[in-house]
C-alpha cells in the first residue's frame, strides 16, 4: 500500500489560537480512518486543515503528487435558497477538473449521472436539491464527492440526524465504494458504534485535553482509551462479528455482569 499523506508536527486551530499540536499521521491507500472525539474536540478542524480549507498553524503536510480529495460536508452547510437540481449539485464536483473559462461538457454530465446511479439516486437528477429528504441530500453530496474520481473521500458526519435505515444505507454505500474501488476513506463520526464496525484505523482526538491517538480500531477502541477521551465508562462488546459500545455516566457504577 502506498503512502498518500504524511503529517509531521502539525498544529491545528483558528487564527493564532492553537487547539491541538504535535500531530503526526500517515495515511495509506485503501485505508479507512474513523475520526472520533467529543463535541468541539477539533475533528472538523483537523480535517479542514488536512484539506487546506484552513491553514496549518505549525508543522507540515506532505502528500503524493496530484493527490485529489472528494469532500462530503455535513448536508446542513448547503443553503436551501439556491435553486439547483440534484444533478447540478453533483456536476459541481467536476468544476475544479474542468477549470475556469471552460464549459461543462456532456461527458461531465454523464459522469455525474453515473455516480448518481452508483449511490442510488439517478431518478432524482432533475429534482430540486432543496426538496430532497436528508438521506437523499446526503447521497447527492456523496455523489458530488465521488464525481472528481478522487483518491481520498472525506466525509463529515455522513449519517448525522438519520434514522436507522438511512444510516445503514449510507454506511453500506460507503463500504461498497471502499471495497469496490479501493477508495481511501476519512470519516468523522459521533457514532462510536459505526466507527467500530466500519473503520479499520482510528484517530481519537480531544484538543482541549491535548489528546491525539491513532491506531487500529480494534486496539484503540477500548474502555481505558475512551475513558481518557470522553471521561465516561464505555463497555465494548462483540456479538455475531459486530461490536457494540455502551456508555455509562462518569460516576455511574457499571452494571453487574
Amino acid at each position, binding site marked *: 500500500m502506498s503512502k498518500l499523506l504524511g503529517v509531521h508536527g502539525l498544529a491545528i486551530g*483558528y*487564527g493564532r489560537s492553537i487547539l491541538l499540536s504535535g500531530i503526526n499521521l500517515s495515511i495509506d491507500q485503501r485505508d479507512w480512518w474513523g475520526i472520533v472525539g467529543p463535541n468541539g474536540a477539533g475533528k472538523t478542524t483537523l480535517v*479542514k486543515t488536512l*484539506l*487546506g*480549507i484552513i491553514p496549518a498553524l505549525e508543522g507540515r503536510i506532505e502528500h503524493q503528487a496530484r493527490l*485529489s*480529495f*472528494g*469532500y462530503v*460536508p455535513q448536508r446542513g*452547510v*448547503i*443553503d436551501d*435558497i*439556491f*435553486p*439547483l*437540481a440534484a444533478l*447540478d*449539485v453533483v456536476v*459541481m*464536483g467536476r*468544476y*475544479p477538473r*474542468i477549470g*475556469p*473559462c471552460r464549459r*461543462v461538457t456532456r461527458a461531465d454530465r454523464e459522469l455525474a449521472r453515473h455516480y448518481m446511479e452508483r449511490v442510488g439516486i439517478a431518478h432524482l437528477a432533475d429534482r*430540486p436539491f432543496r*426538496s430532497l429528504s436528508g438521506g437523499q441530500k446526503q447521497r447527492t453530496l456523496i455523489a*458530488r464527492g465521488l464525481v*472528481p474520481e478522487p483518491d481520498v473521500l*472525506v466525509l463529515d458526519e455522513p449519517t448525522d440526524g438519520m434514522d436507522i435505515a438511512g444510516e445503514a444505507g449510507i454506511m453500506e454505500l460507503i463500504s461498497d465504494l471502499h471495497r469496490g474501488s479501493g477508495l481511501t476513506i476519512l470519516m468523522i463520526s459521533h457514532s462510536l458504534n459505526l466507527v467500530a464496525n466500519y473503520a479499520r484505523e482510528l484517530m481519537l482526538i480531544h484538543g482541549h485535553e491535548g489528546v491525539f491517538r491513532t491506531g487500529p480500531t480494534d486496539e484503540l477502541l477500548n474502555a481505558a482509551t475512551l475513558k481518557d477521551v470522553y471521561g465516561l465508562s464505555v463497555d465494548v462488546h462483540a456479538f455475531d462479528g459486530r461490536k457494540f459500545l455502551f456508555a455509562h455516566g462518569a460516576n455511574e457504577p457499571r452494571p453487574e455482569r
Partner: protein
Amino acid sequence: MDWVRSIPVLSSLLLVERNGMTFLDALPILQNGILAGLFVALVSAFLGVYVILKRIVFVSAAISQVSSLGVACAFLVAALLGHHASEVKSQFLSGPGLTSVVFACLAALLLARQVSEKRITRESILGIGYVLPAGLTLVILDLLSAEAHAIEDILFGNSVFVSAEQLRVQAVTAVVVLLVHALLYKEFIFTSLDPETATACGMKTRLFNRILLLTIAFTIAVSIMSIGALPVFALMVMPASAALTLTQRLRTAFVLSVAFGVAAALVGFYLSFVFSLPTGPIVLATAGLFLVPGGAKALLQRWRLVAAAAA
C-alpha cells in the same frame, strides 16, 4: 412619425403628451438616461441573484455608501486645492468617478475578509460600514454647501440627463462585468454555494469570492452616478428576489431577474415621463410590482396545503 401612428397600442403609448411634448419627441433628450438605466438594470439585476443567494444584501448597501463617500471626498480634496465643483465634474473619469470606484472596491475587499465574530458580529461591521460613510458624506456635503447641487447630481444620479461619457462608462461596465461572469459562472456558483468543499477540491475560493465582490462593487460605484444609490440597490435586490420566488432553476432565475430589472427600468422611465414623477423612485416602485407574482404563488401554495389538510 406616421408609422408609429399606424400601430394602435404603440401610438397611444409613445404619443402620450406631457407639457406639450410627446414621449416620442422627448426621446432624443431622454435617450442617454434610458439607455444608462437599461444597462444598470441589466447588470444589477443579474448580479442581484448572487447578492440574494450569498445573503449579502447589506454588503451591497454598505458598498454604495462607501462609494458615495468616495465621490464626496473627490470634491472635498478638489475644494481644498481651490478647484470649483464644475471643474471636478467635467473631469469625471479622473475625479469623482475614479474615487467612487476605488472606495467601493476597497470596501468590497475589506468586507470579503472573514472575521472572528467573537467580539464583533458581521452585521455590526456592515451596519458601521453603512452608517459611517453615509454620515461622513453628509458632513462633506454640508462643508461644501455652496457647490452641493453639482455634487448631488453625481452623488444621487440624474437619471434623466446622463452625459455621453457616463453612458459609455456604464455600457463598458455592463459588458466587462457580464463577460467576467460568463467566463467564471461555474466558479462563482460553486464557491458561493459551498466554499469549503470548493476549496477542498482545489478551487481558489477566496480569489473567486473577491472577483465576484469586485464586480458587484464596480457596478454599484458606476451605476449610482447614473441613477442614484436607492434605485441601484432596488434593482439589485427586487428583481432577483422576485425571480427566485418563481423558479426552481438557477439559470431561469438569472433570466427572469434580468427581464424584470430591464422591464422595471423601461416602464419606470415611461411612467416618470407620463406622470411627471421622479425617475429613480418610480423605477424602484415598478421593480416592486414584480414581487407580486411570487407572493401570490406562495399564498396559493399555502392555501392549497391548508385545503389539503382540511380535506
